[in-house]
């Protein structure tokens, strides 16, 4: 049981760390909290408190780093659109092409509608 909790703790903490460095960093809160719970459970379930001391400490350490990173990113990351120059150029080119095409189309007399 304690081994299972420990393994789950490791998996969730590493998952949280991976998520924290991706743009989906806010989701990292979910596995991070799960990792803390699994870490605590391992500690509570194991009778010999010294047995898994080091691995539990490691799980907590990874989780705390993840939480710090995620919180920092949540507070300081502003959503800004990247470079759209290429799209704007394409848009201008498309408009020119479209107007040319529209000139050739039979458009009903709009003013009479």
């Amino acid at each position: 049981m304690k081994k299972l909790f420990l393994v789950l703790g490791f998996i969730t903490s590493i998952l949280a760390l991976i998520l924290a460095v991706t743009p989906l960093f806010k989701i990292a809160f979910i596995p991070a909290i799960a990792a803390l719970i699994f870490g605590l459970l391992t500690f509570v379930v194991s009778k010999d408190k010294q047995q898994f001391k080091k691995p539990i400490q490691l799980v907590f350490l990874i989780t705390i780093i993840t939480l710090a990173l995620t919180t920092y990113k949540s507070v300081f990351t502003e959503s800004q659109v990247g470079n759209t120059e290429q799209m704007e150029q394409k848009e201008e080119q498309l408009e020119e092409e479209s107007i040319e095409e529209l000139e050739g189309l039979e458009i009903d007399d709009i003013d009479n509608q």
Partner: protein
Amino acid sequence: MKSFLSLLIILSSFMLTAQNNTIAAGEKLTFSASYNMNGLLNELAQVIMETSTVKTSKSTLLKLKCTAATYSNWDSFFKIRDLYESYVNPKTLTPYLYNRDINEGGYEKFMKYTFSYRNKNVASVMRKKRRDGTTWEEKKTVKIGSSTRDLVTTLYHIRNLDIHKATIGDSQNFTVLFDNKETVVRIKYLSKETINTALGKKECYKLGISLSNSNVLKGSNDNVIWLTADQNKVPVYAKFKIAVGSGELKIKSATGLKY
């Protein structure tokens, strides 16, 4: 049955020539698209809906444009630069020309539809980029019904509907041409709700969207759009159910509105 069918045909022809009382040139709506998982909101992209006038030697048309661009932190993972535009009659919102130019994580595709309601067909041009960088083109003529529109025009057309005359539970079908196929979109008026938006507290029409012959957007109450219950009928919020969590579209700003 015959009289019902003829009534339906007359109604659908009216639908296409319905007057535009809502959309004006110079309007700009900015949205933020995000992915919501258990209340943890991850902003993905910025969506802009813009209108402008376009002049040809013979007439002045309305250009409806929708663009989507991922935020800079996503660009290195999955860069999206999508452009959808439609050139329409400013009085009836009947489309003449539609362009779709998408770039989604390296996948590039271009579509152009030239509408001809007189001949009830669409001349479509598709251009796709191969992996080696070369492009290939496919030209097709697609038969359409008298009330078939493109995606962008349909979005604006929904705003132009007389929702204030409808009663809760009413629904209407729209035929949309997408990827050279006609798809029927069903819009259902669910209720009137007051929600908090970036534009303030707004009373809104809550509309359910569902596609009848497709696997995406299944069910009518999972995919909902809120339009302000005023004359502008601005889409302020949209929610789409996906496998895990949900997608959201929230308004950030609206300028150049008609009323």
